[in-house]
């Protein structure tokens, strides 16, 4: 693609926004790093499970691709 892939912080913010709005990721500002990354990994696994992606808990290309697709704003779990 001629468009440079999103830099890491873009990737991260895309993922945090997506998981916060659609997978109930708690607000990240005040939690410590450890708690934050485990919360993120848990929600990533839920999302990967929902979309039948490889469940790794890590933000890989396939997972980011799905996050960038246009979609409905109703959460996929615990709506």
């Amino acid at each position, binding site marked *: 693609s001629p468009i440079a892939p999103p830099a890491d912080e873009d990737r991260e913010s895309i993922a945090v926004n997506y998981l916060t709005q659609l997978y109930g990721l708690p607000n990240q500002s005040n939690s410590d790093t450890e708690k934050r990354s485990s919360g993120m990994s848990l929600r990533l696994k839920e999302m990967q499970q929902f979309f039948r*992606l490889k469940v790794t808990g890590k933000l890989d290309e396939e997972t980011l691709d799905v996050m960038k697709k246009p979609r409905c704003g109703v959460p996929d779990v615990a709506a």
Partner: protein
Amino acid sequence: YSTFQGDYKWKKHDLTYRIENYTPDMSVAEVDDSIKRALQLWADVTPLRFTRLYRGTADIMISFGVGDHQDGYPFDGPNGLLAHAFPPFEGIGGDAHFDDDEKFFYRSPQGYNLFLVAAHEFGHSLGLEHSRDPGALMYPTYIHRDVDTFVLPKDDVDGIQSLYGPNPDETGPRPTPPVTPNKCDPKLVLDAVTMLRGEIMFFKDSFFWRSSPHRGTVEQHLITGFWPEIPGHIDAAFESPLEDKVFIIKGEKVWALYGYEMAQGYPKSLSMFRLPRKVQKVDAVLYDETSYKILFFVNKQIYSYNEEQRRLEKGYPKPVEVVFPGMKGKVTAAFQYQGFNYLFSGSKMFEFGAYNKLRRVLNNNYFLPC
């Protein structure tokens, strides 16, 4: 499908809706019609009936807004989140909001079709959550579909009828709700199989599975979600490494993909492969990388096209059984992988090794683990 936990369903079947405002993307009449048809989809398969109100509060209040539109769930600008709706309960329950930073369309395949987005949101307004079925209307991501031929998929029909039951006023036969093919179905018969730059693509009805052997993942998608121009129920597909293209064949038409993009100048005719005029449909195609020959399976015969010399080979057509001894049934799909030829017939896959010697007969989901 899934429904909202708790008893989130309307306690009545006669519901009202009101369109509070409009998007500048479409005419008032187009918005009205899109909304009406989107509600009718659900009415057709349930006892639910929808009456439009022009003032006051309706069960389903429909509006267009941007960014923070005062419901606590702000939109996010163009693309991303397109709309949302609330399950059945008092007040905001049932309401549907559309992000007017999106470009909504009435018919064109570009942008977002309002009828499709609204039909999905009204599924939520009636008590459905998102479905994991990639063919379902209630799947979370937007997938363009042909709105003229759109039939509510079975997964959605089952979901809404689990809440409200069937339409008691059913009059006459309805189009069969499409079922998403299941790779665990032992009777699965594939339409076509091809390589695509190292991935294996399995086509069935309106869907394809995309298998990445090196990543160990298999995804299922609607064909139209990737290539709106390509129809479902294709006859055959093959990859030409020489042209770095995948050719997709249905009837006498041939489309071409360049990677995941549609190649320009297609569809072309099957005659591009010099097949006799009487051949108006092929059952399968196998590309032999060792000889640059393209084998066309037509009923129980094979035509061989030499891609380098761009001409049909002499001495063909030949019976399939002469070229692939032991291959008795009709071949419905074929591909070559790591030097072996795989021919699909019914729910079986025949593996041929060097000199087209039959090695194994496998289940056709050998490459599509259940």
